[in-house]
């Protein structure tokens, strides 16, 4: 099947943009609004992806007779069998995917809660170290606990869009992801425009003052980390189902913690539009770099994959020094918008 490279480019751009938008919105909720610097963002994302790597097999197991096949050991064959089932029974996808999402949301919330528990009472620097550590641990577990998501080799997951004719399948995936991201964007925007958004920004600005005004910052931080964990896990599910696989190695600090931080800081924190802009900018630039990989390769004296690290690290430092408030700086809500009853 031959799709036009331009369409592949745009479709992939839209899909990756949607995944990152979901994750960045969740990071923005906890960090930009709530002030909890979750340097272990990858934890929730990987959690969601791992759910995508396990739950569908279990649920389809109730519908399809696996025989002696095991999800990890006989991965390819099993996925093939399930995909065939999906083609025949498209309606099954709705249920399976919904169950997967629900489980992922629960797992993400629990992971948020678990990482919040030791961390939330700690000072800013200890908090950072602890959360970072959580992010590293899940990767270690994913890589070494082979029965979970296939260890170093990874695992393929059933194609939830296997019922869509091949030539539309790719664009449909991008569209579904974009729709999901769009809905989540609208919900988050609505959420942060409500008094909760104000409450979160106040927690971030001065939790002691907030405490003397009758709110419990610890509880608020717990809640926001849980919520962000849930959303992060949704992002993980989306990504895993888009690439139709889970490889634990891929859930590293650069891609799923650091990059989201860069995106929201460059775009503008505590500002959903800023997140939108920042996310689009970076996904597009990275896509372009990969697209023109071959022509760049000759120009650079080194392997192109390291450019990512150099550019993102360097850019982040420059932004922190010269434009710490991002492209669209945070603005408080105008009184007029509060007045409308």
């Amino acid at each position, binding site marked *: 099947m031959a799709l036009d490279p331009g369409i592949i480019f745009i479709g992939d751009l839209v899909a990756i943009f949607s995944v990152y938008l979901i994750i960045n919105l969740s990071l923005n909720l906890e960090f930009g609004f709530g002030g909890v610097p979750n340097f272990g963002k990858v934890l929730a994302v990987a959690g969601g992806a791992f759910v995508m790597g396990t739950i569908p097999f279990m649920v389809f197991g109730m519908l399809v007779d696996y025989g002696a096949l095991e999800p990890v050991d006989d991965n390819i064959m099993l996925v093939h069998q399930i995909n065939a089932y999906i083609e025949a029974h498209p309606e099954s996808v709705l249920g399976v995917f919904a169950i997967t999402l629900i489980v992922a949301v629960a797992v993400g919330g629990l992971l948020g809660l678990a990482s919040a528990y030791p961390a939330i009472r700690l000072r800013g620097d200890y908090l950072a170290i602890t959360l970072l550590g959580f992010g590293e641990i899940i990767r270690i577990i994913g890589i070494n606990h082979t029965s979970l998501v296939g260890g170093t080799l990874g695992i393929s997951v059933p194609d939830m869009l296997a019922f869509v004719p091949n030539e539309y399948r790719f664009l449909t995936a991008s569209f579904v992801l974009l729709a999901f991201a769009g809905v989540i964007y609208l919900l988050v925007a609505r959420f942060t425009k409500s008094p909760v958004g104000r409450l979160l920004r106040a927690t971030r600005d*001065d939790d002691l003052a907030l*405490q003397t*005004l009758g709110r419990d910052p610890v509880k608020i931080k717990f809640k926001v980390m849980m919520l962000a964990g849930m959303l992060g896990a949704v992002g993980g599910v989306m990504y895993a189902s888009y690439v139709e696989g889970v490889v634990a190695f891929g859930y590293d600090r650069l891609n799923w913690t650091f990059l989201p931080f860069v995106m929201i800081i460059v775009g503008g924190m505590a500002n959903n539009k800023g997140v939108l802009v920042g996310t689009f900018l970076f996904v597009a630039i990275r896509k372009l770099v990969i697209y023109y990989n071959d022509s760049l390769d000759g120009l650079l004296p080194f392997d192109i994959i390291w450019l990512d690290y150099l550019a993102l690290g360097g850019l982040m430092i420059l932004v922190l020094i010269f434009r710490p408030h991002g492209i669209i700086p945070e603005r408080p809500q105008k009184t007029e918008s509060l007045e409308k009853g």
Partner: protein
Amino acid sequence: MNLLTVSELRKSFGGLHALDGATLDLHPNKINLLIGANGSGKSTLINTVSGLWAPNGGRVTLRGKDITGLPPHRIFEHGIMRTFQIPKHFAGLSLMENMLMAHPEPGESFRKALVPLQWKSYEASQTKKALGILESLELLPLRDKLSFEISGGQIKLLELGKTLMADTEIIMLDEPIAGVNPTLAHKIFKKIKEILKGGVTFLIIEHRLDIALHYADYVFVMGDGRVVAHDLPDRILDNKEVQESYLGK
């Protein structure tokens, strides 16, 4: 029944006894002034009563109910609000938003946030109330400014506005007129007098006696972590203990 009673409150930092058995009984619906030299324990008293620091001993009771050592947000829920000497405000929030933060709202629930029906009208009425207060404090034109964009005096006014929004029974102010010019200082105290009519009780720490004594209804004097004297404002300065501990021998 007594409103707020502090009895034998003790708090020490390392070897330093910042509070060494402080005892006082607030006069309801009055301006209670708390004075004393630097380091006599005034701020420590407020910090301990408001739950910022857990006391090492003693009791704080509100209408006979023990509220000793409760966390600050619980103290607030019991109807005691406080301000800080260096005003604490939310730097990323506008003046209006700062005002709205002074009182918990139903819309702050994570669950209700997406259902505006459940909080929109309350939010609107709070906004209206805040607008009225800001107007009376002549801060209305600044309502959408960030709190660091306004002057020190205006911030002191904002603090006062927040106490009005919070609507608590007892208000503890830590140096409400520090660093404020005399005209504004008088204005602030006049406003406090006005708020008093709503049935609240004030406990105010203030150094600038020339202004504060004018407005106080009752004065407590602290020295070395204890309340060493209390009297009516016009008599307090004649007290020998007070002169010794406060003005230097």
